[in-house]
């Protein structure tokens, strides 16, 4: 068992599960989308990205790309949340929340791609 591989897979899957937890629920229902969950999803996604740094294999490069996509989507969601909550008079409206959740949905797709690649690589790996 390779400890590095364990950490690697752990963070990739955790990024997916946390993101899924935030995404699931009514699109514009504030009670279904917890801000702590978005924060955790972003932090784990960033860590997962950094863990892929410097991998020169082709699979590693594709994983880095999908991970960067997820980061970008989540950062966009967080920025929108911050601006609406702190810099607008209207505050959080169902419409803004819906766009935040759909952005995280995009990140979820990228996370799923990452996991599929990871699983494929694991299946193809024969000792």
């Amino acid at each position: 068992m390779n400890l590095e591989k364990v950490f690697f897979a752990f963070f990739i899957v955790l990024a997916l599960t946390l993101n899924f937890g935030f995404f699931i629920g009514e699109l514009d229902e504030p009670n279904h989308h917890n801000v702590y969950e978005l924060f955790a999803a972003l932090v784990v996604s960033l860590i997962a990205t950094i863990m892929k740094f410097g991998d020169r294999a082709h699979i590693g490069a594709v994983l880095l790309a999908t991970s960067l996509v997820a980061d970008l989507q989540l950062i966009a969601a967080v920025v929108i949340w911050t601006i609406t909550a702190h810099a607008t008079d209207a505050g959080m409206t169902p419409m803004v929340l819906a766009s935040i959740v759909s952005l995280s949905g995009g990140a979820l797709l990228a996370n799923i791609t990452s996991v599929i690649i990871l699983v494929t690589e694991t299946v193809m790996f024969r000792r």
Partner: protein
Amino acid sequence: MHNIIYLLLRRMRVPLIVIILAYATSILGLVLIPGMDDQGNPWQMSFFHAFYFVSFMGSTIGFGEIPYPFTDPQRIWTTVAMYMTVIAWLYAIGSLFSLLQDQAFRRVVAYTNFAYAVRRIREPFYLVCGLGGAGKLVIRELAEHGIRSVIVDRNETRIQSLLLEELPLRIPGLTADVTDSSALVAAGLYNRHCAGVIALTGDDQVNLTIALTSKLLAPGLPVICRAESHDAQANMASFGTETIINPFDTFAERFAMMFQSPSMYLVYEWMTSLHETPLTEFAAPPRGTWILCGYGRFGKALQKSLSFKGIQTTIIEADVVRTNAPESTIEGRGTEAITLHEAGIEQADGLIAGTDDDANNLSIIMTALHLNKDLFTVSRQNISSNDAIFAAAGIDITMHPGRLIGKRVVDILTTPLLTDFLRMANLQNEEWANVLVSRVVGVLTDQPPESWALTISTKQTPAVTQLLKRGGTVTVQDLLMDPRDTATPLPCVALYLKHSDHQELLLPADDTPLQVGDQLLICGHASAETHMRWTARNNHALRHICSGYDRPSGSLWRWLSARRSDRTET
């Protein structure tokens, strides 16, 4: 470039994760711990405020407790967070700096910069391997001729010293094992601008490997190789190495020529200037008996050439068995008077100190001159930095293998015409050489002549080609005249003319007409080259020389003079 980024990212993985974790825990703690607003109501920090606070706290900017003064639980957590984030930053910055200082990383950076610099070269360049005495001379001379080169050497300090040299061109240098083909490829072996490979390391085996590698990977490229043994020479020639230079054989042949035909030797010497001797100081070596100290590769080559010319040599050698010296050899180093006495120093006319140790060579010369001050002395110099002491020792001829090879390579690369000229000159007799020498001495006072080549082309001689295209004639003599005073010839002699149809003329007559594509080899005073190139470029100067009449160059004066000549004709 990619290598550097990958290495940087991989090494920064852990520090970056540490920073993210430190920030995430600090932010999360601040969001969870209850606070109080300015009216005393319970207040919870949002993620945005927490991120803002941690950002300025972690970078030690410290704007204070924003937006409301903190409660004690918040302050406890902030204390923890402060240390956490600052240590995380220090760790990350420290790792970054240690990575930048890392030997392996710096090597990768140097390699990448080198490969980039080579890729960016957009003109022909030479790949030089080995930065010893010869390599240094070659790159400096090539740079002064405006020819680019790239250097690879095993020794880091030699490559570093390249940066300190004031060269007119930037020469990319790489510290690498030259026998490693990937180093040669990085140095531009596959580059379409690479004009040739020059192997100048001090090791025959290494030079052989370089020649072999470049012949296999880039068969079209010409290779110039240094070889000190006949074995290696034959081996290199077997797979088609274009030019192989053996410093000992080259010197021995030239040395033997001094005895047979001093004038021919002078012609060679001027053209290839293996060592600078002023014209007046040239003295042919005496034909009597010679003592040869050191029977290595240098000694063997000299002994062979001397005996070929019928000159007696007495050999002194310390290791008779290993060098396979003839039976009459006197055993000893030659540095002590007793050995020299035994070899008959008092009756000898010349002495050659040819060991591979500079101190021994100098000691031999000093001791011998003490015993017989009329000796003609020849010494081998192995290390360039000993120039000053060799000059002070009053030696008649000093032979420095590195310098000899370097100058030979530069001549081959910069004036290929010279090789053609010398090949033709070699077929002439001593009288011919005498005439040439007296002609050259006639135009020069006492400095050795410079030689240069001129190609009749739009690039080098625009004025000449323009005149030829208009149907005019330009002769060799026209170029040899002083543009400032058309009655005086420049202090130079036309040596060799190669027509565009490969017809060759040795010492072309003054009235030989020139054609486009002709190549002319000239020797003479350095100032003559400047004036000649000026004539060849400047329409006005050339017309002045050809017609002997200073024509007006401005359009108004040209019109006026045309009118005047019309009037005189009618």
